[in-house]
């Protein structure tokens, strides 16, 4: 149905043409869901954009064939291409928040799209819109479609977006990360819907995603891309279950399994710049282990409540408080890894901020190694916990000051806590610490923007370690990274944790990642603890209904597919 052969897409730049996609071929049959996987920068979205004819200027298709049925997509002029978009090919974008016009009722958006492509009376278009929404599983569609997009939840909105894509009966829908912004429960419903549309309506889908679990769950065929090139394609079970190419094998090895804990990911450590023979960070390791380093310490939370001011409903009344965290109590055993899982809005980040003293709880107590740990502003700048608790943040692009050199960023904790007084010694230690986290010591004179996301995250880890912390809080440290980089970083965390006896609080929405890391686990939902216990017990025999459902709905691949 869709046939792409030898597609090459180039982007002219001031350094000459950059080839974004090279010699790409794939075919999608009727009613087939074709997964397109690859890491960021692999050119997945560019392929989708080239097919639908919406390449971002100044990109252009320089070579290849694009056939939809008997239509040559490359041969169309601007007007014919416009008429075809929406009519025969539709697109679903990642973020349902922004792909609907917030100022138009759902009804008007649907009817507008239908009438743009088909000549029919408005009443018939409305009828079609209602039918579509009901088909998407929106109940009472005739009334619901009077609403504005913000009155729908994220999952409902994505259903509306799918309805919009479907309302002209297209043959092919290109879905670019359609479920990435959604929580697992909603994700599984949307995936089910896509599967049903493919089976019942015979719509073909091109599903662009970085999530191999999603592909494994619903795609019939799959194409693996890397750096704009085709690596491997074919039926999903064959490509992912018995990968032929080395890259596909690596990719599969890097995916954290949900059903068991593995000691280390079998991935090449190619991301760090460390050259063989150079410093491996021995001096930094000795420094971290030396001195008055005593036993690891634990962390206890007792009945922590955190409230934020809610929406003000009247100028006379104080707004009702919104409880972000409700009666949170748990113990982190010294030297262990505590995993905290929860979906968006569960209060994970609020918990991290409370631990680091950025937010003050309204009640409850915290202790650090037996000593009371004040919260919020009550924790002074000179409180010892400022040094003992360090944090690795989620976004490697904003957690390092882009105007400072790596050396300045790394040496900050050293002089701030008076750990190393001599300037040259600080520099030497920082350089060696970079070696310890798998980077070249030369990185010390560069700026953060010269590094990739994974490398920056390593630098952030080095900064945290240079404070000689006893507690390391990691807030979604790998969720902005590709799976292979994530696997390398998780390996690094495991190594560092066992080498230095750190107590780690590891926060993530990704159940599989937490399973790989954590000794104990806390499951959060809407600011309340649903379940807590040793991680193997929680994963194998979940007690709370919520945990059971989460585990069940997370897309995974058959365990037989792993090497």
């Amino acid at each position, binding site marked *: 149905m869709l046939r792409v052969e030898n597609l090459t897409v180039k982007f002219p730049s*001031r*350094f000459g043409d950059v080839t974004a996609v090279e010699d790409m071929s794939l075919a999608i049959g009727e009613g087939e869901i074709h997964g397109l996987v690859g890491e960021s920068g692999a050119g997945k979205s560019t392929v989708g954009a080239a097919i639908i004819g919406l390449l971002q200027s100044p990109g252009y298709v320089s070579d290849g064939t694009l056939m939809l049925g008997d239509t040559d997509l490359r041969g169309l002029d601007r007007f014919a291409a416009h008429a075809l978009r929406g009519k025969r090919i539709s697109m679903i974008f990642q973020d349902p928040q922004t792909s609907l016009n917030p100022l138009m009722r759902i009804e008007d958006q649907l009817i507008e799209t239908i009438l743009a492509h088909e000549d029919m009376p408005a009443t018939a278009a409305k009828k079609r819109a209602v039918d579509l929404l009901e088909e998407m599983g929106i109940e009472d569609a005739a009334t619901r479609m009077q609403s504005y997009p913000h009155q729908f939840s994220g999952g409902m909105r994505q259903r509306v977006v799918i309805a919009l894509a479907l309302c002209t009966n297209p043959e092919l829908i290109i879905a670019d990360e359609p479920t990435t912004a959604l929580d697992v429960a909603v994700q599984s419903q949307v995936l089910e819907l896509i599967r049903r549309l493919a089976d019942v309506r015979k719509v073909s889908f091109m599903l662009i995603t970085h999530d191999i679990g999603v592909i494994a769950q619903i795609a019939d065929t799959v194409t693996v891309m890397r750096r704009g090139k085709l690596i491997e394609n074919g039926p999903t079970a064959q490509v992912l279950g018995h990968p032929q190419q080395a890259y596909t094998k690596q990719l599969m090895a890097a995916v954290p399994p949900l059903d068991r804990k593995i000691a280390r990911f079998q991935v090449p450590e190619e991301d760090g710049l460390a050259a063989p023979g150079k410093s491996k960070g021995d001096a930094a390791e000795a420094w971290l282990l030396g001195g008055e380093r005593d036993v690891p310490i634990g962390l206890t939370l007792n009945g922590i409540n955190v409230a934020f001011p809610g929406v003000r409903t009247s100028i006379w009344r104080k707004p009702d408080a919104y409880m972000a965290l409700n009666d949170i109590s748990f113990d982190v055993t010294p030297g262990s890894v505590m995993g905290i899982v929860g979906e968006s809005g569960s209060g994970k980040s609020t918990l991290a*901020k409370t631990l*680091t*003293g*950025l937010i003050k709880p309204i009640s409850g107590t915290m202790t650090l190694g037996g000593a009371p740990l004040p919260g919020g502003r009550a924790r*002074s*700048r*000179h*409180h010892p916990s*400022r*040094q003992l*608790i*360090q*944090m690795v*943040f*989620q*976004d490697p692009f*904003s*957690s*390092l*000051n*882009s*105007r*400072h050199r790596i050396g300045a960023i790394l040496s*900050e*904790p050293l002089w*701030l806590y008076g750990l190393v007084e001599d300037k040259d010694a600080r520099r030497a230690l920082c350089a060696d610490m970079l070696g310890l986290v798998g980077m070249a010591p030369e990185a010390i004179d560069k700026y953060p923007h010269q590094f990739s996301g994974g490398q920056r995250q390593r630098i952030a880890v080095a*900064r945290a370690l240079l*404070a000689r912390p006893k507690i390391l809080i990691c807030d979604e440290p790998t969720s902005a990274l590709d799976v292979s980089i994530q696997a390398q970083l998780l390996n690094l965390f495991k190594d560092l944790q066992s080498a230095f006896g750190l107590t780690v609080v590891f926060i993530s929405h990704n159940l599989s990642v937490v399973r790989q890391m954590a000794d104990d686990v806390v499951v959060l939902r809407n600011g309340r603890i649903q379940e807590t216990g040793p991680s193997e017990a929680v994963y194998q025999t979940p007690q709370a209904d919520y945990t059971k459902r989460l585990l069940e709905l997370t897309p995974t691949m058959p365990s037989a597919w792993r090497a």
Partner: protein
Amino acid sequence: MLAFIKRHEGLWLFTRSPAVMIAAIVALTIIIGAVFAPWIAPVNPYDLASFSLMDGLLPPVWEEFGSEKFLLGTDDQGRDMISSILYGARLSLIIGVSAMIIATTLGVGLGLAAGYFGGRFDAIVMRIADVQLALPAILTALLIDGIARGVLPPEMQQDLRVVVLTIAIALSLWVNFARTARASTFVQMNKEYVQAAVMQGQHPLRIMFVHILPNILGPLLVIMTVDLASAILLEATLSFLGIGLPADSPSLGTLIRIGMQFLLSGEWWILWIPTLFLIALVVSINLLGDFLRDVFNPRLR
């Protein structure tokens, strides 16, 4: 050379836009001319002995009766127009630049602190800024001028006119800086590198000036250029209205005011030449400001 230019986005964009290059050349020429006025200008317009009433009202050299001694003609006192303009531009630039620097320091300091501390301090600073914004710049200048006249002893008033004018202009410009600095600081406060610094227990002043300030310089630099142009214009306006610099040490605005008297009597050059000069200066600075904004804001590209 080409490779170097290509590597730097800003330089590359610069070479692609002729309007900006012309603006840069014009602004640079005027600034160099003004800075080196004492060495470049044919005569010193402040030195009463250097000109004579006999040369008064001579037209530019290309007009009938023009003299090669005075390329752009003379004013009613017989002062060489080129010299007056160069010295005038020098004064205008001195006042404009110092006013801009004072406004930047005051505005960025207050805005940064307001954005960092928030709460009551933020509210107070921003309300003062709102009040300041409600007063027209000219009114502020008149107010400061009035106070200075009342407070300072008469013999100092003449000497301190430049200072008074600078302060007046700075006071009416700081709000821009404060608002921008505050808004940008708010954005940076949510960035994780700031949270990391707060969490580590670094000193607030260090976080503000070492961490946040370098990250908000982009928009501030744009405002600095645009406000330099405003400051020069404001000075010209005040001098034109007679509350700025006196006729014996004329700035561009004073020259334009003097020229006004001769507009209808045929001596057009006394008004038009300094006016065109002022327009060229302000427009080219503004063009450079717009260019900087494009460089610093990739979204507009």
